[in-house]
Each structure stands twice: as C-alpha cells, then as structure tokens.
C-alpha cells in the first residue's frame, strides 16, 4: 500500500512539477472516483470531466472559446490528460486528436485508458500522439508506472 506524500519534493509526478494537475475524463462516475483517488494518492491535483466536450471546455478548447492563451489561465495549468477511450459523443481518440491539433495544448501528454485490449485501437492512439495506453481497471501500480514513464519522457 502506498502512503500518499503530502510533502513537496522532487518525487513529483513529472520532472519539475511538484503537484501535477491532471484532467481525468471518463463517462463512468465510478471510474472517475477511482482514478481521482489513485492520482491524489500520488500527490496530483485532479479535475474530472464526464465527457470530451466538458474536457475541451476546461482546457480552453471548447467551441465557444477562442483558442488562445488566456483560456487556460483561470485554472492552474493542466500537466496531463488521462481519458477513457469508449465514451458516448466524443471518444477518447477524438479528444486526443483535438488536443494534439490545438496550438496551445498539443504539448500536454495524453494517456488513453480502455477496458478492451484491441491492438488496432492502441496503435491508432499511439500514432495520434498518445503518450501511453492503459488497460482498465487501473491500479495504483499502473499510475506509478505512468509517473516514471512521464518523468523519463520529459528529459
């Protein structure tokens, strides 16, 4: 069992970020609750969104918003987006694309989660620029791996 660390240290989730802000997107309330706990246990600040449209709005990329620097300023900057693949309306893949197509958010790492291990799906997401693909249900060990992976990619 991992004890959550409340001290600010260089054991941050991502290099140089002490309390990374993660946006978690999932249409399942249960899964949102789970992932929030998994992430806060590793000293992350978490915002959840129940669908792609809300996620884009939060990132300042919504339809009604201008794709400008000012939009992502009201909340602390998002360091990572983790999203479910299968969602009604906009899928995680479509959300990934929109993020990667934007000028302000394209550098933010995006992780896709899915309960289904479909190689085509995984390849498609990785090709579109997803940092990682993770199989649900997620465990604390998965989030830890995510941390190490992202720290290495940041160097």
């Amino acid at each position, binding site marked *: 069992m991992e004890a959550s660390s409340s001290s600010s240290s260089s054991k941050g989730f991502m290099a140089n970020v002490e309390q990374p802000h993660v946006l978690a997107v999932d249409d399942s309330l*249960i*899964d949102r609750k*789970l992932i929030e706990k998994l992430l806060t246990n590793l000293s992350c600040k978490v915002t959840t969104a129940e669908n792609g449209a809300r996620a884009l709005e939060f990132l300042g990329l919504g339809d009604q918003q201008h794709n400008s620097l000012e939009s992502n300023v009201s909340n602390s900057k998002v360091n990572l987006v983790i999203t479910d693949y299968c969602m009604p309306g906009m899928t995680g893949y479509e959300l990934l694309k929109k993020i990667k197509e934007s000028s302000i958010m394209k550098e933010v790492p995006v992780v896709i989660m899915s*309960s289904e291990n479909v190689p085509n799906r995984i390849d498609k997401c990785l090709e579109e620029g997803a940092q990682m693909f993770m199989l*649900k249900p997620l465990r604390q060990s998965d989030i830890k791996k995510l941390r190490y992976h992202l720290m290495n990619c940041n160097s």
Partner: protein
Amino acid sequence: MEVGQMQRQWVDYTKSLFLEGFLDGQFLQLQQLQDESNPDFVVEVVSLFFEDSEKLLNDLTRALEQPTVDFKRVDAHVHQFKGSSSSIGAQRVKNACIAFRNFCEEKNTEGCVRCVQQVKHEYYLVKSKLETLFALEQQIMAAGGSIPMLELNF
C-alpha cells in the same frame, strides 16, 4: 461477540468471497485505497455501483422488451455494466456481462433475455454478500475495533 472474534469472522468471510470468485483483485485495490482521508471509500464506491446497476438492469430489461430490439443499445448498457463491475472487482457479474455481449453480437434475443437473468442473479448475490460484509464492518467499528488489513496474493 467480542471484537477479535468479529475481526476473524470478517477475514474468513472476505477470503471466502475471493475463493468463491465473487470478488477479484480489483476489490483488494479498493480496500487499499481506503485510508484516514477517505475512511468510507469502499462503501462509497460500492454504493455508486449499486445505484448504477439497478438503473442498468432496468434499462436492459426494458430494451429487451421492445418489439424490435436495438442490440447496439443493449450492448452499450452491457459494456457499461461490465466496466463498472470490473472496476469494483465484482468478478462473476463481469463474467456474466462478457457472455452477454456475445449474444448481443449475434443479435440473439432469447440468449440476451437469459443473460439478463444471469447478470441479475449474480448482481443480487454479490450485493447481498457485500452488504453482509459492510454490516460486519459496522459492528466491528461500533465495538471499537478496526478493519483488518487483508494479505492475499494474486
């Protein structure tokens, strides 16, 4: 019953739920996530699952009663149910959902109707078991004891 006895009963009951396949390792993960800052985490998540499931079962039953069954819709509900049961570690419910999806793919109404019954059956079973477990936890805490940490290897 004194606290030590209740705690042993809790351990035995929990172990039996794993051995009989009602729960899998994901439930352990939930228990491990419970801590002082979230002392009711497991009950909260499982309660959400119960609420979600009742609704899904209603939706499924209704969808299969339609004159023309929309199998895509049925499959979407089953997919959701499979996801939520998997997330809390309700293994038998999850497995029943996996079987269910095959019948959806085949557009087999009779098979689907049987599957709803099967999923319902497994759901009510695990619900009752978890409620028993939580009641035992309440008793232990009311008597001033704490819930033991499980050490099971998966």
